[in-house]
Structures are given as C-alpha cells and as structure tokens.
C-alpha cells in the first residue's frame, strides 16, 4: 500500500487522540500538587504517598489480586476442559445445552449475572466473601477461556495427536506431550484474559461480595461517586502503567516468536 491519504491520516490522528488524551490527562493530574483535579498547581508525588498509606485501598487491592489469581486459574482449567469437550468430544447427551451455556454468559448483561448468582448464594446459605466472588468470576471467565482455546483447537492438526497415540502414548500422555504444548499460547492468553476480566469487574463483584471482602473496583466506584479525587488519579496511573508494561511486553514476545518462526521456515525451505 502507498502512503496514507489525508483523510485516513486525519481520522486516525483524531481517533487515537480521542482514545488517549483522557488517559494522558489522568496521568498528568495524578502528579498535581493541588487537591483540585482541574487546576494545575505544580508537580508533586504526594498523592502516591497518601495512596500507599491508605489501608482500605491496599486491602482491597490484595483481595482483588487473590480473587483474580484464583478465579482465572480455575477458569483456565475448566475452560480448557470445556473447549476440548466442545471440539473433540463428539456427540453426547445435552451437547446443545452445554454449548449454549458456554456462549450465553458472554452476552449476558452483568447486572443479571450478578443478581442471579447472589440469589443462588443466599438460597443455599453461602456466606458472601472472597469465595463467592471467586465462584462468580470463574463462571463467566471460563466461557471466555473456552472460546479462546477452542478457536486454537479447531485449527490444529488432529493427526499429530493420533500419531502420538499410535506411538504408544496414553490419551493423557498425548494430551500432555502433544496437545497442550500446541495450544499453550491460547491457554496462556485465556488465563490473561480471565485475569484482566476479574481485576476489572465491578458489577458482578458488587452483587456477590459481602461486607467481609471488598475488591478494588468496588472501592474505586464508591470513592469516584463522590467526585473526582487526586488519590484515584494516582491509583489509575499505577494501574495503567502495569497494564501498558504487560501488554507491550507480551506483544514484543509474540513478535519475536513470529520473526523466529519465519526465519525457521525460510531456513527449512532453503535446505
């Protein structure tokens, strides 16, 4: 393709400005000396200091992290199993219901998912806390994991597995030695997706958490409802920084892998 036309240049510039200016402003004002978020009064990192002393936020961050690690790990196991069953399982009783239940939570409004899980937990007399949030997050994120993993399973060559079986592997060995390494990138990105979804979730966590466990989004939401505060700006900046480093690193790693793969392919063709 040739150079961008002026129209494309303008639409991309304006579009990315729209996407990034709010976040850049947020970051700049997190270093503002003033308590007022809209008036610049000089550079300061005092809000970061106050944030680090705010125990309610630190506790909530810890709970959020615990919930995210647990729920995304369980969701990855369950979601991978579900994807394997959907792609390789063949026919079984209630297959349509099963695949319906895998896709439905993806489009279900969060308020409904949250409400229904809360009613269940109350119905069976489960005390709300970290455990109930983990159960709730696992349920919706396993569906995302299974969509990601099954798209990888569909495209990979089944004969590799069959060859392993012919060469004397048990089914479990074939899965561990052949299938799992091939679908590993999808499993990892499924875990990351589940992890981010759990970190980010406000609505479902609000319904399923009790007074004993508050997650960071719930804390942020109740603070933000009262108005804009520089402490939240500092917290947001930290979160944006972590995500940016994570996403950029991940994309550099995949890029390097692609380059290496292409080089290997070229070498293979030459020889």
């Amino acid at each position: 393709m040739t150079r961008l036309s002026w129209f494309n240049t303008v639409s991309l510039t304006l579009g990315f400005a729209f996407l990034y200016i709010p976040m850049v402003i947020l970051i700049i004002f997190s270093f503002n000396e003033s308590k007022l978020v809209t008036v610049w009064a000089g550079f300061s990192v005092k809000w970061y200091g106050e944030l680090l002393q705010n125990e309610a936020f630190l506790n909530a961050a810890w709970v959020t992290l615990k919930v995210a690690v647990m729920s995304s790990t369980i969701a990855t196991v369950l979601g991978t199993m579900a994807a394997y069953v959907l792609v390789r399982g063949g026919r079984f009783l209630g297959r349509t219901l099963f695949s319906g239940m895998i896709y439905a939570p993806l489009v279900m409004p969060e308020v409904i998912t949250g409400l229904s899980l809360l009613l269940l937990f109350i119905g069976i007399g489960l005390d709300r806390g970290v455990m109930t949030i983990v159960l709730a997050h696992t349920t919706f994120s396993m569906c995302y994991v299974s969509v990601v993993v099954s798209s990888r399973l569909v495209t990979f060559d089944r004969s590799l597995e069959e060859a392993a079986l012919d060469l004397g592997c048990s089914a479990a060995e074939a899965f561990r030695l052949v299938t799992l390494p091939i679908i590993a990138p999808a499993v990892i990105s499924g875990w990351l997706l589940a992890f981010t979804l759990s970190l980010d979730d406000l609505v479902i966590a609000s319904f399923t958490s009790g007074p004993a466990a508050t997650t960071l989004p719930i804390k942020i939401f109740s603070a933000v409802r009262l108005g804009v505060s520089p402490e939240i700006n500092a917290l947001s900046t930290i979160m944006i920084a972590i995500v940016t480093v994570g996403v950029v690193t991940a994309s550099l790693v995949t890029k390097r892998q692609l380059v290496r793969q292409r080089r290997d392919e070229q070498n293979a063709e030459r020889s």
Partner: protein
Amino acid sequence: MRRFILIAIPYAWLLALFLVPFAIVFKISLSDAAVARPPYMPQFDWVTGIGAFLAELDFENFTWLTEDDLYWKAYLSSLRIAVVSTILTLLVGYPMAYGMARAPSEWRPTLMMLVILPFWTSFLIRVYAWMGILSNEGLLNQFLIWAGLIDTPLTILNTNTAVYIGIVYTYLPFMILPIYSALERLDGSLIEAAEDLGCSRMEAFWLVTIPLSRAGIIAGCFLVFIPTLGEFVIPSLLGGSDTLMIGKVLWEEFFSNRDWPVASAVAVVLLLILIVPIVLFQRNQQKQQEADQ
C-alpha cells in the same frame, strides 16, 4: 470413564452456577414479595406437588412493571441510548478501522496494539477519566472558554451527552476490531476494478467497500449494542438524574428498594429484549464462519 469426567466437571459447574441461578431469578420474578424476601429459600414440596407450586406463582410483578411509568421509560430510554450510541460508535470507529486497513502493513501491528491497549485498561478508570474532563470547571470547558468559543461553561457531566461520550469511548475497540478484520481481508483490486469501470472514489466506497465490510459492521454494532443495553457503570457515573437506563434501575431496585421480585422481573424482561439481538448476532457469526471456510 475419563471422557465422562471431562464432560461432567465443566457441565456441572455451568449448570450449578449459570442455569440454576437463572431459574431462581425466574422463579422469584413470579413470586409474591412476602415469599421472596430475604432470606429466600426455594419452596418446593414434592408432597403437595407441582400443581400447588405453580398455583403460588403469578405475573403480579410483571403487571406491576407495565403499570408504573418508570419501567416503560427506562426500557425505552435504554433502547434509545443503545441505538444512538451504537450509531455514533460506528461513525467514529469506521473511519479509524478504514485508516488502519489502509495503513502500510508494517504499521498495522502497532496500530492494532494502540486500539487494544485501552481495552485491557480498567473500564471503570476509563469512564472516570471523563469525569474530570466534562465537569463544569473541567478541562473541556476551560479549553472552550480559552479558545473563545463559549462564554459560560457548558453543562455536560450528568447529562445524556456525557453518557454517549462515555459509551463511544469505552466501546470503540469493540467496533473497530471486527470492521478492521473485514476491511483488511478486502481485495484492493476490486476497488481498482470499480474505478476502472467508471466509478468515482466515493461510488467505489459505497458500492464496493461498504457492502464487503458488512459482516464486520454488523458484528461491531452488536458488540456495542448488546452490552450497552444493560450498562450500569456509565450512566451512574456520567449520567444525570434524568438518565434512565434499565441496568441502573435494576441495581437501585435491588440495592436501594430491596424489592427482589421486581428486580428479578426487570431482569427477565431485559433478557427477553436481548434475545432478539443475541440470536441475530449468533446467526451473523455463523454465516461469517461458513464464509471463511
């Protein structure tokens, strides 16, 4: 045996934590307020049988929804907000997706990453970022006054305009990505052919590019429309007291009024409204998959 376990574990999980909870919502939406007040226990007695169980249920809560203006207005205004913001997102997202697809191929991964990055950052924070910009003494008003465009600050925060801005901003990646993937696959020679055959650039765009990116446009619109309809965070942070959205109504019905049966009925009706777009979306996805093969 092993296959059975493999199927049974995720199956049982989803039955217990997705289907059963939804059945409970459905049941409570048909119950009387007194029966369904916390602590709610599913009351089912095999002795008196299904007949008695069903006799207890009625549509009282649903009738209530039709009698009170609030719910009608909330559903209608949610639909309107969802439709308008889907169109706005398309108007902002299409030119961006088009520009990305036309960009030199070595730029594309970077542009893709720039679109995906906001998607990975917290939804709540992205909505929050607009609160400081849109408020009366916020940066947008400061800028407009400085530029001499207005004399008195505009009220944007706590209005529907702010809700539209918030929705377009947070859901933009969902619109761009499917359209971009449709446009990227588009064969450039088709446009050249159209131009050779006498189309102007605009005509080629309307007659060739738009129809060939239709699947992407439809997918993007559904991906924005469906979650927007039940949206809670954006209207409660950016919207005002006159912003009525059904997700917010459900939330308040549940947490402030503690009326569980009505909250459940609101949820059931919301789901009924969503069934149509969800089914259409799935059909579109299926068609696209078949076209790919």
